[in-house]
């Protein structure tokens, strides 16, 4: 188990097992290695395409690092075991895809309500239902945000390449530990199964974050209390004699259930939200390309972000002022920045592999006057540079006509 103080030994082991250098691997494998470098030492899961390679890699590599792999009887049990392990102090994760992600929703809500750090990887595949089991998609944008019931915050991260999958998985663990919240890694089957060259860093290059523990018995009495004024309660781990009570029901700061007092529920759920809102700057991350003078703004994420960038570069070559913003943290959504960028934009394009999901989030932040156009493709084949470029060109054409009127 990797805990604070274990780093020197762990660094030595990681260096020996995965020496710094270039490797050729799949996105799924990069996620698994990212998790290992982030300190994940517990994995429970259930096989599903296109996420199974994460389980297979973890099953092979975790024991080398004294970590635990369990194949559970289903996805419900998998996330349950991950929550249980997290309360013993292990950095824990599971990985799944569409149908499995649906099964995990109830326990995801439990993890949110009990402020349990963990990483849940959803390697998105085509749906609804079993859909095209082996094909990638980007259809779980809102399932990640609103899949479980009730008012709740969430953090979801989406990587754009194999190497990015490695680093974003580490970031997912760090945010989860820091803010005591489950973090969803919204990967996708296309990057998950694509092989690319990635650089495995020296473990010392990787910054690790650990959950805050109670400083003394007094703090441990309030496992859900804002004892430090930063809205993030220290987490009294099981097995330390604190007699901690953890429940998914509405609870007071001491953990005991109170489902009748409106103020208790209001106070708890609002703190959960506020904890993420207040720290939004630290949580949000996005990339921008050619946005300074962009008249045609693209907003794209995950697997669609790369052909989008390709299309923007091509458009620039043709004298079209196109630019791109790629939200890496997709929830909470970097709407404020998009709002700023939209002020100069004549049109906004949102390429994604679904029939229009992130576009709704963009819509909430931009002026009604700016035309908002989805570039959507389903069927399991990624968007191409040409397809996106065509949309950029016809948008450029339309806005030229409009300014000529």
């Amino acid at each position, binding site marked *: *188990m990797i805990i604070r103080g274990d780093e020197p030994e762990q660094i030595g*082991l990681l260096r*020996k*097992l*995965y*020496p710094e250098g270039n*490797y050729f*691997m799949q996105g799924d494998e990069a996620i698994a290695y990212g998790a290992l470098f982030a300190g994940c030492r*517990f994995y*429970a899961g259930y096989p599903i395409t296109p996420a199974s390679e994460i389980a297979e890699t973890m099953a*092979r*590599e975790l*024991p*080398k*690092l*004294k*970590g*635990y792999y*369990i194949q*559970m*009887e*289903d996805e*419900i*049990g*998998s996330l*349950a*075991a*991950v*929550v*249980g*392990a*997290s*309360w*013993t*102090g*292990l950095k*824990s994760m599971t990985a799944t895809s569409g149908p499995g992600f649906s099964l995990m929703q*109830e*326990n995801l809500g*439990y993890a949110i309500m009990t402020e349990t750090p963990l990483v849940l990887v959803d390697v998105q595949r085509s749906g609804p239902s079993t859909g095209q089991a082996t094909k990638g998609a980007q259809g779980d944008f809102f399932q990640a945000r609103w899949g479980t019931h009730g008012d709740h915050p969430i953090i979801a991260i989406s990587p754009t390449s194999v190497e990015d999958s490695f680093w974003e998985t580490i970031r997912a663990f760090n945010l989860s530990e820091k803010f005591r919240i489950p973090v969803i890694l919204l990967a996708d089957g296309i990057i998950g199964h694509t092989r690319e060259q990635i650089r495995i860093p020296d473990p010392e290059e990787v910054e690790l974050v650990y959950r805050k523990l109670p400083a003394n018995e007094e703090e441990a009495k309030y496992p859900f209390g804002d004892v430090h004024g930063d809205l993030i309660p220290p987490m009294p781990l*099981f*097995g*330390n*004699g*604190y*007699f*901690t*009570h*953890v*429940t*998914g*029901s509405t609870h007071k700061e*001491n*953990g*005991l*259930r109170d489902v009748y007092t409106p103020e208790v529920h209001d106070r708890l759920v609002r703190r959960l939200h506020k904890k993420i809102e207040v720290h939004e700057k630290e949580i949000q991350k996005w990339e921008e390309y050619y946005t300074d003078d962009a008249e045609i703004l693209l907003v794209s994420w995950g697997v669609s972000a790369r052909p989008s960038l390709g299309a923007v570069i091509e458009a620039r070559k043709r004298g079209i002022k196109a630019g791109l913003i790629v939200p890496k943290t997709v929830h909470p959504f970097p709407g404020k920045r998009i709002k700023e960028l939209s002020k100069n934009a004549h049109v906004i394009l949102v390429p994604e592999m679904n029939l229009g999901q992130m576009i709704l989030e963009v819509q909430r932040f931009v002026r009604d006057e700016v035309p908002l156009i989805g570039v959507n493709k389903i069927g399991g084949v990624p968007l191409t540079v040409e397809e996106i470029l065509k949309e950029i060109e016809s948008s450029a054409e339309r806005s030229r006509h409009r300014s000529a009127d």
Partner: protein
Amino acid sequence: MAKQIYTKYKMAKYLRKEALPTALCPGCGGGTVLNAFANAIDQLKIDPRDLVVVSGIGCSAWIASPYFLADTLHTTHGRAIAFATGVKVGLPDKKVVVISGDGDLAGIGGNHLIHAARRNIDITVILVNNFIYGMTGGQVAPTTPFGAITTTTPYRNIEHPLNISETVASAGASYVARWTTFHVYQLIESIKKALSVKGFSLVEVVSQCPVQFGRRNKMKTPAEMLRWFSKNSVPLSKAKNMSPEELEGKIIIGEFVNREKPEFAEELNKLIDEVAQHYALGGEDAD
């Protein structure tokens, strides 16, 4: 008032006083189960700091979580054993106990129950079988006797009850016993054994829910239900020589299995030690 009564109770030191009084109905078998569990812990001199108690959702799930003073994890409906699996792997040296109802553990959670038994992970499960979904208002459960009246079988139950202990025994558990809340001393002994056995152990406690089950099935009071348990219980040894017809409607009590076999958390740690040792000593690299 209630708090004062509880503080006089001999096992009060094991209870979370600020959570008292319990939410269980007067006469509920859950109190007997809590008492038996506390006595077993006391007799074995287990430090509650070495205990993690996990439960699902339902009246029976509340028996120890929140009332027992230990680390307690009150989880989603049916999933307690899966949560407990993660806890046991993280804390292999602690006693991990699951206390929950028949609907929770054998209905919605039946899959986890069977697979934890198959894995033989060292978790002690105290399954409170009250033949009914008590908390949600007395609906039919997978354990409701054939012919019984419930709020969702108002004419009579036409399904056959699941024999939980037999199922878990054949799934591969190390220890399985069944008692009723009438057999308190045997129950305490069995809980003690279950806590001491290394491997998956199940103690099924047939318990009275006079409010949701008894009332609709001609046993209004807790005493009537206990009398029914006492009259209808047949020890395993005797049951072996009885025909299925004779056993119809009877509660078979006793120890179903008590055997040694490799335990999951220990095997997992052995495996990890071997693999880690191999690679630390210069075994081939990963890629």
